């Protein structure tokens, strides 16, 4: 079946089975491999993408449910050389080790900052609790979210 998706601002047509998870459409049909497979059960958050601005687990989302919607992946957060503040913050505080979870972490955090520009530790923890970092870099990820919030706040006040 043919579906139209708006991925990172570009309209994409794919001809796939309706129940194919969005994760595999992104990775295999559109070669956007920044979004990762981690568990296939919506438990680890490595596959997180934004669907109409909301963080969704793309491994559990059939492509038919995403049709016509605006999808943002990790590749869509930066603009050319310019990183999204949350990407820059992850880089600045080195909020990763193996970094396999990083795409999902960054996309989840970007969604949080969109709704809650200056989140508390507790708000970050409850929003991000569905994202697993097996290397255990959680403290730095929280630091990175705060840092990104500060960068965004400065940009807004400027």
């Amino acid at each position: 079946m043919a579906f139209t998706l708006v991925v990172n601002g570009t309209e994409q047509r794919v001809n796939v089975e309706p129940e194919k998870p969005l994760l595999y459409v992104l990775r295999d049909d559109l070669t956007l491999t920044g979004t990762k497979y981690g568990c296939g059960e919506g438990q680890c958050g490595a596959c997180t993408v934004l669907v109409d601005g909301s963080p969704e687990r793309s491994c559990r989302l059939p492509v038919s449910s995403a049709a016509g919607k605006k999808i943002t992946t990790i590749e869509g957060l930066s603009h050319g050389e310019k990183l999204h503040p949350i990407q820059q913050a992850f880089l600045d505080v080195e909020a990763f080790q193996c970094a396999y979870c990083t795409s999902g972490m960054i996309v989840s955090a970007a969604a949080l900052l969109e709704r809650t520009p200056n989140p508390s530790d507790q708000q970050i923890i409850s929003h991000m609790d569905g994202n697993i970092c097996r290397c255990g870099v959680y403290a730095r990820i929280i630091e990175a979210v705060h840092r990104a919030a500060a960068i965004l706040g400065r940009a807004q006040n400027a």
Partner: protein
Amino acid sequence: MRNLPLDGELVEVPEAQDFELRQHDSILRLPHAFSFDRRGFFKVLGGGLLVCIAARHATSQESGAGAHRDHEPPKTLDSWLHIGENGEVTAFTGKVEVGQNARTSLAQQVAEELRVPLTSVRLIMGDTELTPYDMGTFGSRTTPQMGMQLRKVSASARAVLIQMAAERWSADASGLVVQEGKISDPKTNRTISYAELVHGQKLAKLIPDDPELTPASDWKVAGASAPKANGRDFVTGAHQYTTDVGLPGMLHGKVVRPSAFHAKLMSCDTSQAEKIPGVSVVHDGDFIGVSAMDVMTTGRASQAIRAQWDAPPQISDRELFDHLRKGASDENDNKEQFVLGSVEQSRAQASKTLQQTYTVAYIAHTPLEPRAAVAEWKDGKLTVWTGTQRPFAVKEELAQAFRLSPENVRVIVPDTGSAYGGKHTGEAAVEGARLAKAAGKPVKLIWSREEEFTWAYFRPAGVIDVSSGAKADGSIIFWEYDNFNSGPAAMRTPYEVANQRITFHPADAPLRQGSYRSLAAAANHFARESHMDELAHEFRMDPLEFRLKNLKNDRLRAVFQAAAEKFGWGKQKATPGIGFGLGGGFEKGGYIATCAEVSVQRGAVKVTRVVEAFDCGAVVNPQGLKNQIAGAVMQGLGGALFEAIRFENGRIVNPHLSEYRVPRFSDLPQIDVVLVDRKDQRSMGAGETPLTGIAPAVGNAIFAATGSRIRSLPLAPSGIPNKAS
């Protein structure tokens, strides 16, 4: 029976590495070196200077188990370093990057000794065609061995370049100075860059490997925090892990797994799967797999296969510890044992004795990137991209599986989504290659999370008996220690005890088991440091005071004191529901002490604060090291509190992340890391030992908070029952 070496010089003992392999890997293979055409290097990298060492020497240094090669003449030169005509420095190492940040820390050490900016150094890692033979990335050996190797190569290369400049200028080499990749002659004010020196050359230089090295106290690039190499690629999603590698015409594979461990295939009907267009089916012995253009078709095809399996009855986790004890091998050949004085004769001198048993469950590494491979056959040659810690061992595995000569197999390891000791083997590589061979096209195989939880191997479960006694003043007089199955790593006690008998008993293991970050050091630290806490309690002594009373090793004392000071140990008394605990020890050249604060409310355990002090000699990358230590605490917290593999009759009962709980954001305590930077000591690895202090620290803190002594890991998979003790 073998006596184990153990002291501060452990890492210098060649058996240590051999020992680690024997302990956890049944796949130790003979290393082979095959000549590589160095003209190939210049083709890939352009002209310049290539720095080589006779391979025999290089590998025997790297590999303790490579002693059998010593009588062989060198067959080839290993190329370690290339200085390009543009000044770019490329270093080659068979080590791999799995999140431990070796790509960065090794580059720092190259930059330091070569006197070039860090930004001009890149590493080619874990490619069996380009990098010198390496036994594998494990045992915290990258820093002490590969770091040292690359420092020596780089320092020698610097001497070669200085000599080249001296010859060009007819100057005295000893009068030349070098910095930032430029050599200058202060007498004449002449300066030449490395790039200019090697321009237009295709020069391969054989170098000695015992140059004078820069002491850590003079380090400028090493010893300072450096950002992760290629960090930007990881925040933009651009980095290609094995799971992201794509080749033209590539298919997606899937393996049809047996119904249970040790199952035999009785019958197999693949006819329905074969009818699906574009599906390639393999049925070869007990191996069944499919591949197709997309994952949906692959999934349908695998489900269309009708396979009948016959599995023998197998034990469940409820019987595990009895089984390990009963299944222990009593043959002396298999035991690892250390004996000092006489436990029997000293028993009567003890004013108090204590005997307890500790257990640890099987746990899973759960690397977020599952085992995966992309395999391609081309002109009789097999190339496999795969996330493994042992690319050269996987190359051997592939050569053997497909009866290929090793020069026709290449294994490439992209920087990998973690491993933690869990990726020593090449299952996905072999399976992917088998599917690709059948399909006549490249195949990508990514294990599902359920496969990862089932068909990978586990951190060994174990039973540990400790029997001890101390004199009235609290000095320990005897220490008897028996570890069944979990492993001998760090089972020796660092405390001063005149009479010891410490034994590792291999046992009949019901599950496939292997390396796990820190090996058995986590289990042995848990048993020993819990027992130390119990002894301290028997003598009504403060646990820190009791340890220091029985401890002479200065470096271990120093980390205990550093952690205690930062934590404020002893300043606050435990109250019902709030407790403090500590644990520490020595392993793989690293000294560790961990203090933890826990809160237990209505049985629910929350670790609220952790201080960990660590000494691994001269620190190479402080920010990277702190990241490793805090991460190890966090990962160790899972095994300490709630991780356990449950199994029944050859099947894993909880093979999903919804059933196997790993630490999440909400489990995060405040973690303070104290680095004890010993610039006078050799740099040692830090990926593993920082994981070993947290379980006993938390167990001891739970006791302080509740009076319940828990002697099994995980400590509180479903909270603390009232007064378990």
